[in-house]
């Protein structure tokens, strides 16, 4: 086995930790800041051990002041640093919305190009862990509405490992959404895995009958659904968006041009969602390629319930993806 093909068994959590650790080793301007990132080791244990290695100046526990520490990250970025700010969960990021939307996303433009803000903000997103209506939402697509931000949704080990590097190289604010159900996902990752691009969608499973377009926490479900559909001789292509802003429209349209059918699987709410945006772009750019209307599988439009059966019912699932595609294919022969 050569060095290039050596792999290691690793979790999504560990892949992110390695990326952060490497960034701290590589660039003295990088530091980590957030609630319980130090002594506690991170709410989801992503930053565990980093305090001991890099010390409290670079692994900074903050008060529960999302607006202040996210804004301080913006200021520190303006002052020449490369902050990685961790927000425990996407719902808490709403407390820092002023800083993210009114400052991080606007200052480059408002200043006529004088001040760019190279900040990386990481946060946990998504449902599936019975955390109810204040720890489970998917605002990834919501943030993708905002010009000035870049929105990344790593769904694979390679992206968990490699997106941070690229995000830190970026001169502008980058938000990284880590789906909470992914942290314990384990798999093989090339030992030399490194930076990955952050502007392109990826075909995770090629197919010719239908495009399953998804990202983040529903990529795994879509891939499983594709396997089940294969048993029915339905060859589904799975598109992992990877980046919600900028959205890689080209890869989406190319896929639809090949399969002529599209199902968008999105853990966000349907109304005004990223799935709505993707659907619109397919209409605008590939209308005559479509054999059928675009279908969408989104979360039920309710605050996320606690009870397991209710939460499951609220989310796109492998079975509902399979069922949607079967119905679609059945209706069209």
């Amino acid at each position: 086995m050569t060095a290039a093909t050596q792999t290691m068994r690793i979790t999504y959590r560990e892949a992110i930790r390695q990326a952060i650790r490497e960034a701290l080793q590589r660039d003295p301007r990088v530091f980590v800041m957030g609630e319980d990132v130090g002594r506690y080791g991170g709410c989801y244990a992503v930053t565990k051990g980093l305090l001991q290695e890099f010390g409290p100046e670079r692994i900074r526990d903050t008060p529960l002041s999302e607006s202040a520490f996210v804004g301080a990250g913006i200021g520190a970025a303006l002052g020449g640093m490369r902050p990685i700010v961790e927000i425990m969960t996407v719902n808490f990021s709403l407390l820092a919305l002023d800083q993210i939307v009114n400052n991080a996303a606007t200052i480059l433009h408002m200043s006529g190009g004088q001040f760019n803000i190279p900040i990386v903000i990481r946060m946990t997103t998504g449902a599936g862990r019975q955390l109810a209506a204040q720890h489970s939402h998917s605002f990834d697509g919501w943030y993708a509405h905002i010009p000035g931000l870049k929105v990344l949704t790593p769904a694979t080990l390679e992206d968990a490992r490699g997106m941070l590097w690229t995000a830190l190289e970026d001169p502008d604010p980058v938000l990284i959404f880590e789906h909470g159900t992914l942290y314990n996902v384990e798999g093989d990752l090339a030992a030399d895995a490194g930076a990955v691009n952050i502007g392109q969608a990826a075909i995770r499973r090629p197919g010719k009958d239908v495009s399953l377009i998804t990202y983040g926490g529903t990529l795994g479900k879509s891939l499983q659904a594709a396997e089940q559909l294969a048993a029915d001789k339905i060859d589904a292509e799975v598109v992992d968006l990877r980046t919600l802003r900028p959205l890689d429209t080209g890869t989406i349209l190319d896929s639809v041009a090949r399969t002529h059918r599209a199902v968008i699987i999105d853990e966000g709410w349907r109304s005004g969602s990223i799935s709505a945006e993707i659907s619109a772009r397919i209409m605008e750019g590939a209308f005559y390629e479509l054999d059928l209307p675009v279908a969408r599988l989104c979360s039920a439009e309710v605050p996320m319930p606690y009870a397991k059966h209710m939460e499951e019912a609220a989310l796109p699932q492998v079975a509902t993806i399979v069922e949607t595609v079967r119905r679609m294919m059945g209706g069209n022969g």
Partner: protein
Amino acid sequence: MVPQADPAQPTLQRTHALHLLSDMVRVRRFEEKCAELYSASKIRGFLHLCIGEEAVAVGAIQALTPDDAIVATYREHGHALVRGIPAKAIMAEMYGKQDGCSRGRGGSMHIFDAATRFYGGNAIVGGGLPIAVGLALADKLQGRSRVNACFFGDGAVAEGEFHECMNLAALWKLPVLFCCENNLYAMGTALKRSESETDLCLKAGSYEIAAWPVDGMDVLACEEAAHRAALEVRAGGGPCFLEFRTYRFRAHSMYDPQLYRDKQEVEEWKLRDPIALFQTRLREQELINDDDVKQIEDEVAAEIAHAIEFAEAGTLEPIDDLTKFVYSERQRS
């Protein structure tokens, strides 16, 4: 034998006195001209004038070196002028011309200038405080001895960001000079109608921040306090908080009929007009004469006339450039 006065000393005092007076007159006349230009529809959007509050910006900014940073509010023309951003660049900005300091992207409320480390022009009350904290954090992490002056009004103390930032700056002993311009009104809401505790220094003090009130109508008092505070901040002792007690003579913005305050109150404060007070004092001390005042007025009038000429002659940015500066054009590592 009567000792001879040091001939250098009065000259120095006189030079400095003329400098302070000249800066206050510059700000006053500039603001008056802005009001005129607003009525003539040359300036649009919101326009907030600092007439009556000139001593604060002029006094406080004397304590800053070119390496220091300023974060200001939407009532920031005065600070920008005193900091050294050319009047013509500020005026062109308000004209919406690409020759403006923010290329016409910001307008009156968003003056930015990298050359003088002027980080806006923030039009979200309290929104600039986290940025100042972050700039200070970057200085601390990079071992730089710089002061980050953050201007905000009394209205900001009701915002959560104020309290989050007081705490964070004090907790991490960051070099922030908090300059609260207490003009008694958050737009139209009197401090006493919106705060259970109206002693603002007490609020800052509760976060273990050295805080003291300053007569914001006395430019020398403002200057002295700022020097004292900047010395402490620069020495690494953590933040200081100055409450400049001042008063806005004009309306909040150009759309304000001022129903919330008595004319009598305004007239009483006008008796403490910072420019008139300072002029009177200088005349009493025989440091200046009528010719000096005339010369200042003439120079200021010429500067403003030139600024308007520049703004009038400025060019509008091509519409093709509309989407520039949403993201940086070049990657920066």
